[in-house]
Each structure stands twice: as C-alpha cells, then as structure tokens.
C-alpha cells in the first residue's frame, strides 16, 4: 500500500470538500443546534415550565411509559432532574448518531460522486494508485473526518450539558458509560455505514446532490432508534448500545466487502 498516495488523496479530498458549502454548512449547523443550543433549552425547560405554572405531569406520563431499567437509572433524581437527565443523556443519544452518519455521507458524496461531477476522476484513475489504495483513501478521508467531528461534538456536548444543567443537577453527571461506549464503539461503526452506503450510491449518481439525497435514506434506522426510545419500546442502556454497535459493525463489514468488489477503476471509468 502506498501510504503517501493515500495521505495525499485524503488531504486533497478534505481541502476540496471544505470549499463546498453543501458539505460545510451541515457540519456547522447540526452540531450547533444539537450540541450547543439544545442542552440549554432542555436544561431550562422544566424550570421554565414550573415558572409558567404549566403542569409537569407530562413528564410523569412520559416516564411511566419508560422501561424499568431506565427508571432505575433515573432513580435518586427529583422530578425536574429526571426530566433533564432523561432528555440530555438518553433522548439525545440516538440523535447523536446522526452526526457521524451525516458527516461521513456528505464527505463521501463529495469525494466519490463530487469527483465524478467535477470531472476530476478520470485523471486520478490514470495515476499509478491502485484500486485498493484509491478505495482506502476515499473511505479514510470521510471516515476520519466523521469520527473526528463526532468526537469533537461529544466533547463540546459534554461541556455544554454539565454547564447548562449545573443549576438543577449540581454536579458533573455526563458522560456515563453508555455515552462513552456510544462514542467510542457505535460512532465509528455508524460513520462507516454512512460512507459505505454512499460508495454504492455514488457509482450511479450523477453528482454530489444526487448522491447525498439518495444516500440520505441511511438516516432512517437512526430515526427508528429515536422513535423507539421516545415511545418507550426500548432505551439506550449500555447493553443496547453495545449490541447496536455490534450489529452496525457487522453490516459495515458485509457492505464493505461488496463495495470493495464493485470499486474497480474500469467500472468507474466506463461510467464517467
């Protein structure tokens, strides 16, 4: 493997992608809303509800539907704290996965389909870089970016959550073990899923937007997890997170195998 060529492609892809507003804006706006604004709203929502005299019964109703394991996790907190911990620690956990999924998808779309759209792929295919090196470089660029952005978002979120909820909780309560496993075990797998799906989509897509719109469907399983948690069907316990991670890694492995088989320069060249 020519690591020099791989590094050069990764660096170039990052440089080119960072000049595409379609890539940069979602990476800035989504974390800003989810990991900076959202914690403050959720941390102060119960207080604002009490101050306005609105009933907090809805929280009771919500928590009553939750699995017993989650109620155990929230044991020891008062009603207001339960609401804060539930929303910031558990409700947002599946939403966090949208981050690596979206970043890897958007980068992969720019790297694979975007390259085709900009008509820069042909010259790249004439270089001595092998199919495998090209494949690894394209995947690595999107994956490293997605995982890095997710890790950074997690750190920012941890600071924001503890700061925003300090008044009601009074001590550092985030992250718990579930979140650490979510970030270190599930996030890289989900980032992988986003980009492998995009590899398949990009082969046939005409350009960046086309690929991104079609590949965006990959977010559906994450939405299902969110709905499952809000409706009380399941909650993000340590066990569930470990299991979800395992499943996504297995899906990644299978898709990666197929993607590597279909990633042939001859095939790419004839589709230009």
């Amino acid at each position, binding site marked *: 493997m*020519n690591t*020099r*060529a791989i*590094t*050069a*492609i990764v660096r*170039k892809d990052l*440089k*080119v992608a960072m*000049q*595409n507003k379609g890539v940069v804006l979602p990476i800035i706006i989504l974390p800003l809303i989810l990991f900076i604004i959202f914690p403050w709203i959720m941390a102060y929502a119960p207080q604002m509800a009490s101050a306005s005299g609105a009933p907090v019964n809805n929280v009771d109703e919500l928590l009553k539907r939750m699995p017993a394991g989650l109620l155990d996790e929230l044991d020891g907190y008062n009603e207001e704290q339960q609401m804060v911990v539930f929303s910031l620690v558990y409700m947002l956990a599946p939403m966090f996965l949208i981050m690596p999924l979206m970043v890897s998808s958007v980068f992969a779309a720019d790297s694979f389909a975007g390259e085709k759209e*900009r*008509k*820069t*792929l*042909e*010259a*790249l*295919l*004439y*270089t*001595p*870089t*092998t199919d495998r090196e090209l494949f690894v470089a394209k995947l690595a660029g999107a994956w490293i970016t997605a995982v890095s952005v997710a890790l950074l978002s997690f750190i920012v979120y941890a600071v924001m959550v503890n700061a925003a909820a300090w008044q009601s909780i009074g001590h550092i309560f985030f992250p718990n073990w579930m979140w650490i496993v979510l970030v270190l075990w599930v996030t890289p797998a989900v980032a992988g899923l986003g980009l492998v799906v995009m590899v398949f989509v990009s082969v046939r897509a005409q350009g960046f937007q086309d690929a991104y719109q079609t590949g965006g469907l990959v977010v559906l399983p994450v939405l299902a997890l969110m709905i499952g948690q809000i409706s009380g069907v399941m909650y993000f316990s340590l066990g569930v997170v470990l299991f979800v991670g395992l499943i996504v890694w297995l899906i990644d492995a299978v898709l990666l195998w197929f993607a590597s088989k279909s990633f042939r*320069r*001859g095939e790419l*060249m*004839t589709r230009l």
Partner: protein
Amino acid sequence: MTSPVIQISSLTRRFGEKNAVDELTLDVQAGEIFGFLGHNGAGKTTTVRLLNGVIEATSGSARVLGLDSRVDGSALRARTGVLTETPSLDERLTARDNLAFYAELYSVPRANVKQRVESILQDFDLADRADEKVGGYSKGMKQRLALARSLIHKPDVLFLDEPTAALDPVAARYVNDLVEHLARREGCTVFLCTHNLVEAQRICDRVAVMEHGKLVALGTPSELTRQYVKRLDVDLEVDPAQMELALQTLQSIPQLVIGSVKQEKDILTMTLSGREAIPELVSVLHQKGLRIYRLAPQEANLEEVYFALNGGTQ
C-alpha cells in the same frame, strides 16, 4: 533495432454488442510522435484507456514499455502521462496544489516536489498565477496546466487525447510546439489522439487511422497520401502568349486531366488522374510546342487520405 515502446496485438474491447476497439494490432517506436486519428467514437479514447490498464481488454494484448497493461497497470501508469480530453483539474485548488498533489501520487521524491512543481510552472508559463484557483483560468491555461500535470513525473510515454480540441490557434500552436520539443529533444514517445488532421500531418512521424474501432490505415503521412490519394493537383505555368493553346490542349486529354482547368492569372490549376500522369502530360504539352515554365504538384495531405478512407462522407 530496439523493441517498440508500445506493442498492441489483436486488442479488442467490447461494450455490449459493439466492439469499441476491434482486433487492433500496431507498434509504436521509442521517441516517435504517433498520431492516432479517427472521428468521435472511432475507439481512440478506449485504446488509451486499454493501453494504460485502466479498463480491461476483452481479448488481445497490449504492452507499454515492456509492461503488460492487463497485469502491470500500476507500474505502467507510473511511467506514462495522460492528458485527457477534458483537463480534469480540481478547480477548487490552485495550480500549485494541483501539481503538488499529482507529484505525490506519481511518487516524485519528496525532497524534489517543490522544486519540480516550481520548474514546471515556469516551463508552462503559469508561475505568475500559480496560487490562483484553477476555476478562474482560461481554457488555454487549463489545458497547459493539465499538460504540465501529465509531465510532472517526467513520463517515458505521453498519451494526449485531443490536446488542442478546445484551444484557439495560438494556444494550439503552443501545445504542439511543446509536444514536438518533448519528443525531439527529450526522447519522450508521444501517442497523440486527434481528429485535427493538419496538426497530425505537421507533427506526427507516423499515423494510424481508426474507423469504428478498426485500424484502416497505418504509415507515415506521406506513405498514406501516396497510398490512398490517387488524384493529384498540379499548378502549371506556361508562356502567357500560349495560354489559349494550353487550355485547349489540357481539355482535350480527359484521360489525364480530370474535370475542369482553373485559370488564375498565368497559372493553370488542374487535377491529374495520378502521379504517373505527369510524364505523359509533359510529353503532350511538349508535342504541342508549349513552353513550360513551371509544373508544380501539390502534395496531398492527411485530410484527403481521411476522406478517401471514409468514402468522402466524413
């Protein structure tokens, strides 16, 4: 004699029911500028892709620099440079970044990358705007940069796919001069795909003419014109006082002079049935007592070869 730089034997590439390249066999010698002619869809670009191991042949074989394009693609591409029909440049990057990126991919020694990029920017007259994004460049500048990129690693064989198609005459001349310089001074073998026949005639040592994936003619431009262009245009200058007699004589020998004779001042221009008609024509004119001041055959060009091969329909 050294072995050919490019050896192609019965090379075929099929797309669905159509043979894009059909049983192609030819050799290209070291240091040659080899013209690969044909109209759009004749199989030129597919051949370049096959020779560089970018797509696989359905059958047959191709060796470039002794390397089998089917199995040694990566090693082969490390020693070839390709200028694609569209410049294929990253327009969001600067010229310097584009060149540095490809220098890395072609494994130009790390210590030399900066110097090599700088020197090629100078050579191609791009140094002044090297730090501007390529998106703002003119077509000619983009083509020059793309050519510079294809030479960043000093390839032994250069493939050029329609290098002047989108250029104005001045920029086209610049590119052609550069190609000639590379072949004549630096010994680079050039495989030039073009449908610009004037350009091919001017700079190519040998040419191959492709039609629907098949090789229909191969040779030097003069060999091909002799072989395929039977008719010959000639200018005749006689004593001005004998102009009327000359016209009458020429019109009386339709077996030698085809069609009408055009007169422009003291010059008569006509088409002969072939090169072998010249001695007979001189003999007839002499018998009629005409004083010949000048008889100048006009060399046929590749354009006429091309039309002859395509039945005058292209």
